[in-house]
């Protein structure tokens, strides 16, 4: 009797696993998207509340943990603030000059985007940390491939899937991310690619171009619908490709993607 019971249990297990394998390999991802969209829509209000509350909780915990470092951080920030004040004065002058030149060349003013502010309501809990979910979707005019930024035009990724009231954003660190980029200091051009959630690598940089540690890397505006000049991060390490044909650089993102709460989608 016990043997019969075990057999039926095993048969059920094998049948379930077989169906799972069929679903995994034969069912294209797109077919179940409406069901996925329905569940995301259903869960959106709860997720938004959960995410905002837990983000606040995490901030409080971080604050408590960082009390000991506050004095050193304060001194460093005062120093950075003084440096930045000097840079701002210089940049204001350059901006005025730039505006005048752009006016003379009849160019569209830079950085004036149609932005849609959105809350982050979920993120990839796996090792990759390669996507986030936002609370705006088709109903708010969000479309696939729109760039997503945070303050000061820092690019964090692009819209990859859109649902009625939510959208999935593939981060720059995602393996599917590939963006034409340029070094702000030396104008060296390359392709910024995601490294399976581990970071961003600036690839395909010619051996004759110069890359320096600490240089900013921005979008070049070539070959896609990304505006020019969105910051990706700063160069951390420089090396060469295994075939020694190109240079490559590890780019450190400007912000921690795991601590995002509000992002902006560039609609136009």
């Amino acid at each position: 009797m016990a043997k019969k019971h075990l057999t039926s249990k095993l048969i059920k297990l094998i049948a379930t696993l077989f169906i799972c394998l069929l679903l995994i390999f034969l069912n294209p991802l797109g077919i179940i998207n409406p069901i996925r969209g329905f569940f995301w829509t259903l869960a959106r209000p709860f997720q938004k509340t959960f995410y905002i509350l837990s983000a606040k909780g995490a901030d409080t915990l971080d604050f408590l943990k960082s009390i000991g470092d506050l004095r050193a951080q304060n001194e460093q920030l005062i120093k950075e603030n003084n440096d930045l004040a000097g840079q701002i004065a210089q940049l204001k002058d350059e901006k005025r000059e730039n505006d005048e030149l752009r006016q003379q060349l009849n160019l569209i003013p830079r950085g004036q985007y149609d932005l849609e502010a959105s809350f982050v309501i979920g993120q990839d809990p796996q090792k990759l940390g390669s996507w986030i979910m936002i609370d705006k979707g088709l109903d708010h005019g969000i479309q696939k491939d729109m760039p997503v930024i945070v303050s000061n035009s820092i690019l964090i990724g692009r819209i990859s899937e859109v649902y009625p009231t939510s959208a999935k954003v593939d981060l720059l660190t995602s393996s599917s991310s590939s963006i034409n980029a340029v070094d702000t200091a030396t104008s060296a051009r390359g392709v910024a690619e995601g490294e399976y959630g581990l970071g961003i690598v600036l690839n395909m940089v010619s051996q004759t171009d110069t890359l320096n540690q600490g240089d900013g890397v921005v979008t070049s505006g070539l070959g896609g619908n990304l505006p020019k000049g969105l910051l990706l991060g700063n160069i951390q390490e420089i090396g060469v490709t295994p075939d020694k044909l190109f240079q490559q650089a590890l780019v450190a993102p400007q912000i921690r993607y795991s601590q995002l709460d509000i992002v902006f989608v560039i609609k136009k």
Partner: protein
Amino acid sequence: MLQKFIIFIIILTAVLFQVSVLPNFFSPGTVPELAMILIIIWTVNNGYERTIWRAITAGLLLDLFYFWPIGVNIFAAVIISYATDYLSDRFVIVQKTWKFLFLVAAVAGATIVNAAWGNIIGLIFKMSGREPGFLIARFWDARLLIKIIIDIIILFIVYWPIRKLENFLSLYGPGSFGQKKVFQRR
């Protein structure tokens, strides 16, 4: 019916916590697998037969909310539930003494199995030319060890509330939490 609905809400809440709450407190790769821990607790206490639908539901919701192809997490959840049941039948003889120790070992093992399974599927997808989107870059690194420890701590936190809740819910459904298995053995 009420029992099933409440169980569904518990599983849905666990999955939503995994996607929207826990990533704020844990770095990527160390986020605890709450749904998997619940499946292991239910399997050890209720047996595979009574847990299979819960495992399938948890797996389906995880696939939907993780953007993974449908079936990946269902497969893992069903395998983990079956293996836990198979091993608990052989090792958990004196229930109260060994059960908790077995639960700890099962959670540690399931965390490793889950990571390995995600990796295998990711590699198969990559080899077949389909972008996996969820490939785990390295199977074994320090984060997996941290994740095992965190999962065990979460097990300690959720075990008693889940047990109390199941005992309460047993008033609304057949059998009592942890008893069905004893009857089966007799």
